[in-house]
């Protein structure tokens, strides 16, 4: 078993990094959801 931890810099406490990571996946997903919702409106017309 290894007990060593990463020597790479820990960015996880930088709120900017967390926000960037969530926005990078959240914005495209939101765009896709909105596009789909707009298409779905045709069903209720």
């Amino acid at each position, binding site marked *: 078993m290894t007990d060593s*931890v990463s020597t*790479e810099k820990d960015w996880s406490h930088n709120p900017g990094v967390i926000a960037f990571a*969530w926005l990078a996946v959240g914005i495209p*997903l939101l765009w*896709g959801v909105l596009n789909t919702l707009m298409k*779905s409106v*045709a*069903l209720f017309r």
Partner: protein
Amino acid sequence: MAGFLDKERIIAKPSFNRWLIPPCALATHLCIGQAYALSVFNLPLTKQLGITKSVTGDWTLAELGWIFSIAIVMLGLSAALFGTWVQREGPRKSGFVAAVCWGVGFLVGALGISTHQLWLVYLGYGFIGGIGLGIGYITPVSTLISWFPDRRGMSTGMAIMGFGGGALIASPMSDSLMKAFASPTSTGVAQTWVVMGVIYLVFMLGGAFGYRLPAPGWKPAGWTPPPLKEGGLITTHNVTPQQAIKTPQFWFMWWVLCLNVTAGIGVLGQASAMIQEMFRGRVTPSAAAGFVGLMSLFNMGGRFSWASLSDKIGRKPTYAVFFILGTILYFLVPLTGKIGSVAFFVACFCIIISMYGGGFSTVPAYLADVFGVKYVSAVHGRLLTAWSAAGIFGPVLVNYIRQWQVANGVPKYQAYNVTMYIMAGLLVIGFFCNLAVKPVSQRHLEAERAPLPDGQPSYAK
């Protein structure tokens, strides 16, 4: 010294913020989820030579259908074959390989499209991309479960929700790119695939390099593992993937997934035709497309919400809800046609499809409960062969039964009724398979070298 992609390199310090892991998992799954939107290229690809219309030598829809089929078969095969490797090498290396396969798959496919060599498209998107799909799908699973032992369902549900959401992004993005690249001499598909391949490569690499593993023995601050119930399903022990497939539990769960997916996948592909035929004259093609879009949203939402609910009520009861509620809803569908209620029909299918998505996203946590966390990616990879099998059973059942009924004089608007009852029957069988899942016998458990109190993986080489 550990290499840049090695598992040892990414073991996090105890203070690491675990909320950086879900976006990395989403970055992988949102990209590979594009596979569900592949059909947007079908029509343009049948006009590669003629540009405005199909001409002699252009590819047919039947030939193009194999691209998706090869990719899905490769997804199941590579998840099963490389599951143990993914578990051993860790999420950074497997995420890197998945990104390269998926990105390169698009680029090779684009070369095939521009030179009009279909075998290159099969090789690129189908074979190479399919391997990326399989490895990418299972890559974040055990990492998320390790970081979120208190919310196993929610964490894997979030990632697998990305797989459903990927198509919602890919579909309009593909449309926009094809329009931008289209010219009198090109449909713009090859250029679109190049751009998408590069975007997906960058995104997935970003996700792969962001993964970290918790240090052995790590647990969330302030969380103590709940006491295990005597005779309960949740174990702190581990079962190796080789041993897991020898247990009846694995095969009951294989059927649970297969039957749940079969019931959903068959109607997913026929949703547009079904609503138009059952409500002839009342539902236009564009309204039917809206229905398909709505189902995609419920498919995606169900992946997150049902898996999160399973953290509260347990995995086995969650699947019991899928099977009982699904059976009732499938029985009600013919009634919606009889009373002519489009709204009732839409509501039934939206709930059914949410449970189809929920079936995918709840299963990794179910496996972790029953077989332990240590080998969950490898066991999950093997279980995903159920998906490949369901991909054949579902559409075949729906299409052939309907065809047989129409050929025997059943009106088109009633032709789906028998299919719905058969789907309900499959879900009843699924209910009993789920009921049969019991704790794994002691003789299948791995001898623990250094047991950890909360079931955390040891990362032992």
